[in-house]
């Protein structure tokens, strides 16, 4: 089998999970005949039927809310939200219910839903189609947040997410959907949640990133001895992996697309400032979106951290 895209890898994971377990049901707008606006679910409705690949009304609150009841009953819903900018209507369902059901009933009921949604900047779409609101979900105890950055991880992480006993928000970097290709095993492997991976080893700067920014941070690393960590599970975070690396390098740069203020970069910086201060040789820098919403297409490129901005941060921590 040749190299495949993230879209195909996710499709493969969904297809395999639908085949493996009759209780897996996927729901969302336009995921049936249309195969999803990004074609992630292409072919699944034909293969598994409209009762398992369910086209829904335009009802984000409703389908996320319904998925909680489904999951509590014992089937396994995988909800697609068409773009992350439309997940906010379901935020109350996720935060007030999915994240708390286990705690509220001391384990009697749980809500192991998966909510998949494309996120991030970089495809010059209409407004609200470029959101990176991962920090909201990371601030919700009881919720897991996952971002794959390669086709291999996309498949393995999604399978883990589907089999996970907790609610998982699965964020798919829309810019990477078709822009990178890689070999992906056809067998049934998983990539564990909660574990980061060293994407590139190095000694001088620890760089933490995910999604599109992982690749950009790596491109920008030329000429620097960066240890680049692909965080993958944003929540619960692999603190040990980050601390271990920072203890080695003494420098930390976090790169993300979301607006800087209260983004996940803040948590990573705070973790290190609290637990590894004595190892730091430079300020902790965050390269992130400014205090503004993501602009429309004409200005999009200005907003998103680019190679130059990232390199500046690397330089700054090295020169400190």
């Amino acid at each position, binding site marked *: 089998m040749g190299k495949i895209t993230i879209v195909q890898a996710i499709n493969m994971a969904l297809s395999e999970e639908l085949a493996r377990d009759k*209780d897996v*049901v996927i729901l969302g707008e336009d995921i049936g005949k249309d195969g999803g606006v990004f074609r992630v679910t292409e072919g699944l409705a034909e293969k598994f039927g409209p*009762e398992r690949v369910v086209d*829904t*009304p335009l*009802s984000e*609150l*409703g*389908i*996320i*809310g*319904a*998925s*909680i*009841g*489904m*999951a*509590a*009953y*014992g*089937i396994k*819903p995988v909800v697609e939200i068409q773009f992350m900018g439309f997940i906010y*209507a379901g935020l*109350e*369902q996720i935060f*007030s*219910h999915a994240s708390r*059901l*286990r*705690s*509220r*009933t*001391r*384990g*009697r*009921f*749980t809500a192991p839903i998966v909510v998949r949604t494309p996120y991030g900047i970089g495809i010059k779409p209409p407004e609200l189609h470029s959101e990176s609101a991962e920090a909201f979900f990371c601030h919700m*105890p*009881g919720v*897991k947040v996952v971002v794959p950055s390669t086709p291999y991880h996309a498949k393995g992480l999604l399978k883990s997410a589907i089999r*996970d*006993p*907790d609610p998982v928000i699965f964020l798919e970097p829309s810019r990477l959907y078709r822009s990178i290709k890689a070999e992906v095993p056809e067998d049934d492997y998983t990539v564990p949640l*909660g574990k980061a991976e060293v994407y590139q080893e190095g000694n001088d700067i620890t760089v933490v990133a995910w999604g599109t920014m992982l690749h950009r941070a790596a491109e920008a690393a030329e000429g620097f001895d960066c240890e680049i960590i692909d965080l993958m599970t944003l929540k*619960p*975070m*692999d*603190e*040990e992996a980050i601390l271990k690396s920072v203890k080695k390098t003494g420098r930390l740069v976090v790169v993300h697309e979301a607006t800087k203020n209260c983004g996940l970069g803040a948590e990573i910086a705070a973790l290190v400032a609290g637990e590894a201060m004595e190892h730091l040789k430079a300020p902790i820098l965050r390269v992130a979106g400014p205090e503004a919403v993501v602009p429309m297409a004409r200005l999009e490129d200005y907003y998103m951290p680019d190679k130059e901005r990232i390199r500046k941060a690397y330089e700054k921590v090295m020169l400190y």
Partner: protein
Amino acid sequence: MPKDVIERFELEFLQIINEQGVFDSALLPPFKDPDFKKIFETMVLVRTFNQRALSLQREGRIGTYASILGQEASQIGSALALEDGDWIFPSFRESGVFISRGYPMWMLYRYWMGDERGMKAPEGMNIFPMSVPVGTHLPHATGAAFAMKHRGDKKVAAVYFGDGGSSRGDFHEALNLAGVFKAPVIFLLQNNQWAISVPRARQSAAKTLAQRAFGYGVPGIQVDGNDLMAVYSATKEAVDRARRGDGPTLIECYTYRLDDHTTSDDASRYRNKEDVEEWRKKEPMIRFRLFLEKKGLWTKEYEEDVLRKALEAVDREIEAAEKYPAPDPADIIRYTNSELTQTQKRELEELGWEK
């Protein structure tokens, strides 16, 4: 071609036993005499539970409590139409539903004492925890019903919510999805005329809330919520329809909240006593007692005996609740995820909660 009428709707109202205890025997559900007595006994038990909860709150032995006084028929009548495997999604004002489905009363008290363990429903009893954010649990019922259908299980989901809850977007999306999915779910709208201080008329300009059903292509009916037999009968019809695979129903139980909203509320600030007194005359126990009497099933001694037994039972439950060991602070963290996270392990240690 001008202004053709393309659809017509009729909304029905069901009452079987009126305020004087007079009943329509053609409509009366086919219960046996012992069943009627059993129902009365449940009403007494529920009311006793409720009265004791109010006094425990006054004594500082439980926290804020939401009284169900006046809503016993709506709660018990509907719960009675369900079967053991069915799933129930209650709001915070559903003691009567819990109790008539056999939920341990000591656990309910425990919950109102501020202890999550009170909502850990016994295995096999599919009662979701009370939903505190009003109306937000409706989609859960739709989802569970979808799952029942998916599995081919002949079960139904029943969800309880108030007139206030009917104004939330969750109501709309849950009913609309249920209609589209033909999901076996019964929407039991407990219209008790008030959402704290907001009267029903301020909640919506619609004359009834049941008529919302038409907008989702779903059957809807308004029933006299103080008539247990009417509530039972309408719910039974809806449950049968759902179990047959014919989809959801919206039932508006037209009743009245006789007490304050909760023990933190003072209803005298916003409604006048006279109106409440009018409604007190229509409360469901009076009518059911008259009905039993007409059927020769009620005597004063019988009721006294029932009440005494209820008081004893409730006392035992209170004792059990109060002597239950205090919760472990580590539980705060422990039940968040399926496994402890790295952060949580560190926190348990830092906080000294680990044993």
